[in-house]
């Protein structure tokens, strides 16, 4: 093996790499927030067998869970593009990630809701709480506590899947790495550093979610 490593070029481009890492984090966080916001009502609709939204939720979940992420990003970028809806790479990847997150989280949330004893609903009701108040103060806080760790996994998955942004020319960490290595041909160095950065990002995310959990969830379930 006579490959000679040249790291200095990577250090010179560190600011761009860090910028790419920031975009990666940014798009994943946003896709999670959107996923949570849509998955919550979809899970409730599914549990209540809502005539209109429950079938939508089912179709959404099935597509999101049974098609490759690559396909979803292509659909958002090239597919919609063919129909005349031109999204920027960032928005296309965000849509695809949010779509998949919503699909998985809907099922996770549904399981979370189901794990809460029916008597909690009755107790809230018997105190005169409206349906909305029961969900807001009693059911949702307990549900989020129970699905917090599965949700964290989904977040990590979103960070890693965002690397597919490379395929539509997005300037997230992988796309940025791709661009930089093509300028210098130091492929191995750039991708090793990128891999280490992904590793650090996910570890930092896990650490911060654990810290947030400790602050948020004082009582035990």
């Amino acid at each position: 093996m006579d490959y000679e490593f040249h790291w200095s070029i990577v250090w010179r481009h560190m600011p761009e790499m860090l910028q790419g890492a920031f975009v990666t984090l940014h798009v994943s966080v946003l896709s999670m927030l959107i996923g949570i916001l849509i998955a919550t009502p979809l899970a409730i609709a599914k549990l209540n067998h809502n005539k209109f939204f429950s079938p939508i939720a089912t179709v959404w979940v099935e597509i999101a869970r049974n098609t490759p992420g690559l396909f979803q990003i292509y659909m958002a970028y090239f597919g919609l593009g063919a129909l005349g809806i031109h999204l920027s790479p960032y928005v296309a990847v965000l849509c695809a990630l949010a779509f998949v997150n919503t699909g998985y989280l809907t099922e996770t949330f549904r399981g979370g809701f189901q794990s809460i004893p029916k008597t909690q609903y009755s107790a809230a009701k018997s105190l005169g709480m409206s349906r909305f108040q029961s969900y807001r103060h009693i059911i949702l806080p307990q549900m989020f506590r129970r699905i917090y760790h599965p949700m964290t996994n989904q977040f990590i998955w979103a960070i890693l899947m965002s690397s597919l942004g490379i395929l539509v020319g997005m300037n997230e960490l992988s796309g940025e790495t791709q661009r930089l290595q093509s300028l210098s041909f130091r492929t191995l160095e750039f991708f090793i550093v990128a891999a280490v950065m992904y590793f650090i990002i996910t570890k930092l995310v896990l650490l911060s979610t654990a810290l947030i959990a400790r602050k948020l969830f004082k009582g035990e379930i």
Partner: protein
Amino acid sequence: MIQIKNVHKSFDDLAVLKGINLTVNKGEALSIIGGSGSGKSTLLYCINAIESIQQGQILVDDIDVHASHTNQDKLRQKLGMVFQQWNAFPHLTVLENAALAPRIVKKMRKEEAIEIAKKELIHVGLGDKLDMYPTKMSGGQQQRLAIARALAMRPDYMLFDEITSALDPELVGEVLDTLRMLRDDGITMICVTHEIAFAREVSDTVAYFHQGVIEEIGPPEQVISNPQKQTTQHFLRKVL
């Protein structure tokens, strides 16, 4: 006053209540006894509209509970309920458990809600547990918390659904003592219970439910000590 007039209730094909008539006046304590499946718990769920009814009428202070124009959320503020399975809200402290509903349902100021909650919690003997989480407490303590939480809403009536049935035997006493205390306070209550001795001691009226009908009703000296119907005698022989 709670008036129950010819109430019928069924789950699909299973008729659970078959024409119940009952009146509970302010300040009275009614105990409902009977075997499992006799419909006694279902009646409580119908009184506070957690379950619907198919026929008849339930009036709480002349408000028709199941009428379509009745605001049931508001109506439930009149009716405190404690369940068989103690269901404290596990994500809230003892104090937050009791203060939440007064604050968000009755729209009280936070300080006011906390003050009322504290008072009720001290009343049931949980004054030293305010900042604890309920999962750290015994079943008896959690059940007393459920009572205080219901009382903090200052209901006009209390409904108790076999609240000692799921407790370890040694914890039953503290919960019954709390009920006795409420009785001394003159709170109107309907207790579905298996504690026959307790029913005899605290109730003004005892109703024996059998297969969805009231088989026998009257003062405890009569129904429990001197039952007329064979089914009642049979039931009491089994449980006493």
